[in-house]
């Protein structure tokens, strides 16, 4: 069995300068406070043997995630650990180095030296080392190096975490990690999500199918009501042929050239045919001669009706003017009389004005005389200045008399002039009205003449003044009406034929709608045959197989983990029981069994029971659980007594143990030391004393002083035994 003989640590973790340890005694104690470098010393052995295998998540040790090997306080240090192992025949020096390479990259080196002076490096050294140690890292953890964390995890009350810890103690982390990784893939969940997406897609297809089916049924009902009980493509094509023939015949009957319409070769060409046929129907309806004739007849009728209306309105206008003239005649006696009377009136007005001027002249004279007399006021006012006769108040009398006579005369003349002026105005109005009427009458007569000419032109004959256009027009309109009646019957018959064609077109369109809807339904059906759908199905198959394979892998891993756990526990069962009872001396526990529960394809699950299978967990203290963890580890270490590694490393094994437990632990270690060398790290003074006093094997002690970043661990050797 290989045992450690010497260890040199330099630049590793908290170490700086080389520190050398010698493990010449059966037991070596590393004693010191927390963070003094004890655990790093044990870690150095582990790293020297297993390199990167003891770093990272796969170790199942949380602190190993992001674990830094080189001393972080040294700027350019290489980590180097040299371990000498020896058995009864040979010794081997293992030297593992981690150098800082270019761009801060770390380059690992391994060298293995043999006692005959030969050596090897790199892959060869790795291979030879594996052959020498004959243990993987997980076995080392189970049977050689008891980590604090592995023990601490057993103390948890959470069953799942305790199961994890026991798995780690049994060296099954790799399986558990695999199972965790497989669980994280969430394959079944992904498959369910994929199925949910597909189901949603399928639901959309189903909705589309229902909609199209409903449309199809409605179209079928419509087609049936239009006289197409079986709307099939062939039916539509036959109808199209018949329709084309019908339109050709119609064109020929109407004296028109048949319109070229391409017959559909399949249902997809039906819309083009329908458009062409519909245009042909419109063209025929517009261009057929009877329609044209009817249109022309109608235009002629409208023209004549307008002329008739114009003639009648012109006549009515003329008559109204005649009536107006006659009314004026009654009022004024005729246009000449008005003119004569107007001339006479104007003369009379002139005469009146002359008389007025004369009267005004006299008045002016008299006024002047009176003014003169008044100016000659020296004369007695009551004597006539002409005859000198006495005339008392002569001027006053004259003025009054004059004023009275003159006023009467002027008033009479004025009144007459007023009357004449009024009459003159009336006559002028009358004369104007006569002139207006004459002008209007002239225009009316011109319009009648024009209208007559237009009627003659329209009828193609000359109408003399003796002809009455109205009866002629009425006769012509009656003839047109009769002709229109006959023509209407012909046109209606033709329209009926075209309407039949249009009905047929509608049926063709309905058949097309049905066939198209059926086709759309078929496209949904074609989804299943489409390459993307097939690819999707293949992908779903692949996923299903993947899920199935993962499940098989998971079940296999679980089974192997279960089987291996069972085998290990069986091998160490008795020792675990012995050590546990020795460690705890629990009055209520006569025996302990670590039961592996029946495999159910899941992770391993353990139960701590007594000899009768009763669950012990509720009655175990933290110290008991710690003792259990130690019992498991030491049991497994002892069970592997035939292993090539003949040493056990325990890091702070007395944690959570009471004095009695510690005492018992020393006894158990004494037993273990029968077959294995012990490397113990502790900060527990009581435990140290117990080891010194009761461990019957010779021992060496390394005391770890205060650690400093600039100094590294301060290690001194003592040999208590």
């Amino acid at each position, binding site marked *: 069995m290989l045992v450690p003989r010497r260890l040199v640590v330099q630049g590793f973790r908290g170490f700086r300068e080389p520190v050398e340890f010698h493990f010449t005694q059966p037991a070596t104690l590393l004693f010191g406070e927390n963070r003094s470098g004890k655990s790093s010393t044990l870690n150095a052995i582990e790293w020297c043997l297993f390199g990167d295998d003891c770093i990272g998540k796969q170790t199942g040790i949380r602190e190993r995630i992001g674990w830094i090997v080189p001393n972080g306080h040294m700027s350019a240090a290489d980590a180097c650990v040299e371990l000498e192992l020896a058995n009864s025949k040979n010794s081997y020096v293992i030297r593992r180095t981690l150098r800082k390479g270019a761009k801060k990259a770390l380059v690992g080196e391994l060298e293995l030296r043999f006692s005959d002076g030969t050596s090897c490096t790199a892959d060869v050294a790795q291979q030879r080392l594996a052959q020498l140690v004959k243990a993987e890292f997980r076995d080392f953890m189970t049977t050689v190096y008891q980590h604090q964390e592995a023990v601490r995890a057993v103390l948890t009350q959470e069953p799942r975490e305790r199961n994890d810890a026991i798995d780690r103690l049994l060296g099954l982390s790799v399986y558990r990690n695999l199972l965790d990784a497989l669980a994280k893939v969430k394959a079944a969940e992904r498959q369910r999500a994929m199925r949910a997406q597909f189901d949603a897609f399928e639901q959309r297809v189903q909705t589309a199918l229902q909609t199209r089916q409903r449309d199809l049924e409605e179209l079928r009902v419509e087609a049936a009501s239009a006289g197409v009980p079986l709307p099939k493509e062939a039916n539509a094509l036959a109808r199209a042929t018949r329709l084309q023939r019908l339109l050709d015949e119609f064109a020929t009957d109407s004296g028109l050239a048949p319109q070229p319409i391409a017959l559909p070769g399949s249902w997809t060409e039906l819309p083009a045919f329908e458009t062409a046929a519909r245009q042909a129907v419109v063209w025929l309806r517009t261009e057929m001669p009877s329609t044209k004739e009817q249109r022309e007849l109608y235009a002629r009728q409208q023209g004549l009706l307008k002329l008739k209306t114009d003639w009648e309105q012109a006549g009515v206008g003329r008559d109204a003017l005649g009536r107006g003239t006659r009314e004026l005649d009654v009022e004024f006696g005729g246009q000449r009389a008005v003119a004569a009377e107007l001339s006479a009136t104007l003369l009379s007005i002139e005469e009146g004005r002359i008389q007025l001027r004369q009267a005004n002249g006299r008045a002016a004279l008299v006024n002047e005389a009176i003014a003169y007399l008044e100016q000659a006021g020296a004369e007695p006012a009551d004597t006539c200045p002409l005859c000198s006769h006495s005339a008392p108040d002569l001027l006053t009398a004259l003025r009054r008399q004059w004023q009275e006579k003159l006023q009467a005369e002027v008033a009479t003349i004025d009144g007459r002039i007023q009357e004449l002026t009024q009459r003159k105005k009336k006559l002028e109005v009358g004369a104007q009205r006569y002139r207006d009427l004459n002008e209007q009458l002239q225009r009316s007569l011109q319009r009648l003449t024009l209208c007559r000419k237009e009627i003659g032109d329209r009828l193609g004959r000359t109408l003399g003044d003796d002809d009455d256009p109205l009866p002629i027009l009425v006769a012509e309109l009656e003839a047109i009406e009769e002709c229109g009646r006959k023509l209407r019957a012909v046109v209606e018959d033709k329209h009926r034929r075209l309407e039949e064609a249009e009905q047929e077109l509608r049926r063709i369109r309905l058949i097309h709608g049905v066939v198209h809807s059926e086709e759309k339904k078929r496209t949904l059906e074609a989804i*299943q045959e489409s390459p993307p759908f097939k690819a999707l199905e293949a992908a779903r198959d692949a996923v*299903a197989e993947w899920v199935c394979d993962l499940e098989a892998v998971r079940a296999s891993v679980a089974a192997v983990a279960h089987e291996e756990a069972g085998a290990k526990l069986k091998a160490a069962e008795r020792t675990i029981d012995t050590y546990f009872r020795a460690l705890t001396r629990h009055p209520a526990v006569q025996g302990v069994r670590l039961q592996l529960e029946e495999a159910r394809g899941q992770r391993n699950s353990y139960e701590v029971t007594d000899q009768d299978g009763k669950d012990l967990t509720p009655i175990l203290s933290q110290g008991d659980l710690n003792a259990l963890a130690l019992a498991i580890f030491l049991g497994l270490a002892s069970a592997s007594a035939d292993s090539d590694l003949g040493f056990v490393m325990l890091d702070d094994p007395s944690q959570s143990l009471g004095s009695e437990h510690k005492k018992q632990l020393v006894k158990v270690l004494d037993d273990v030391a029968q077959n294995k060398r012990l490397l113990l790290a502790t900060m527990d003074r009581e435990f140290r004393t117990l080891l010194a006093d009761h461990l019957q094997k010779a021992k060496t002690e390394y005391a770890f002083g205060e650690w400093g970043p600039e100094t590294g661990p301060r290690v001194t050797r003592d040999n208590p035994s």
Partner: protein
Amino acid sequence: MKTTTYECLTRLHTRHGPRIFGKICQKFVALAFRAGGSSHVVERGVQGVDVDAIWGTERYALEIRTTRTNSVPFLSKDVDGLASRRQDGYRPMLGALQLRVLARWYFANAAFLRPGPLTFDAMRPIRHRELEGRVQPLFDTVVERYFEETLAGSQAYLDHLLRQHGVCVECETLSSP
């Protein structure tokens, strides 16, 4: 399956209910095997494996399941029944159909199945695609051809039809609700 098949099956399901619908599909499958040239077909409406079919050199024993959900039940008695037929040289198969528009028959090798609810996804890795490819179009044709009469006449009509086509029928016909 074809959309027309899906529509026909949906109407049959609505008309007859899920239980009789399952029996009808079982008979349609038997007819499909016969239509495909199976020399010997047994359809059981009673206890036992639902359909036996000899097709060329292959012998199939089929348990038939239909559902609208994502899984079908596969019972211990089904395992036992198929195991018994396996001893007689038949390949044990589970035929399952989801009544959905984009679904099709799954024929899964029942030798790999354990009793319990079985999802269609779980059947995928053990599907007999070649058999599915042969049976599905025949099934579509059978449904299209006999749908109207089945809708009106149900199982009695199909039993008569199966006998007419030379299928051995062991029946205990259920009546429509």
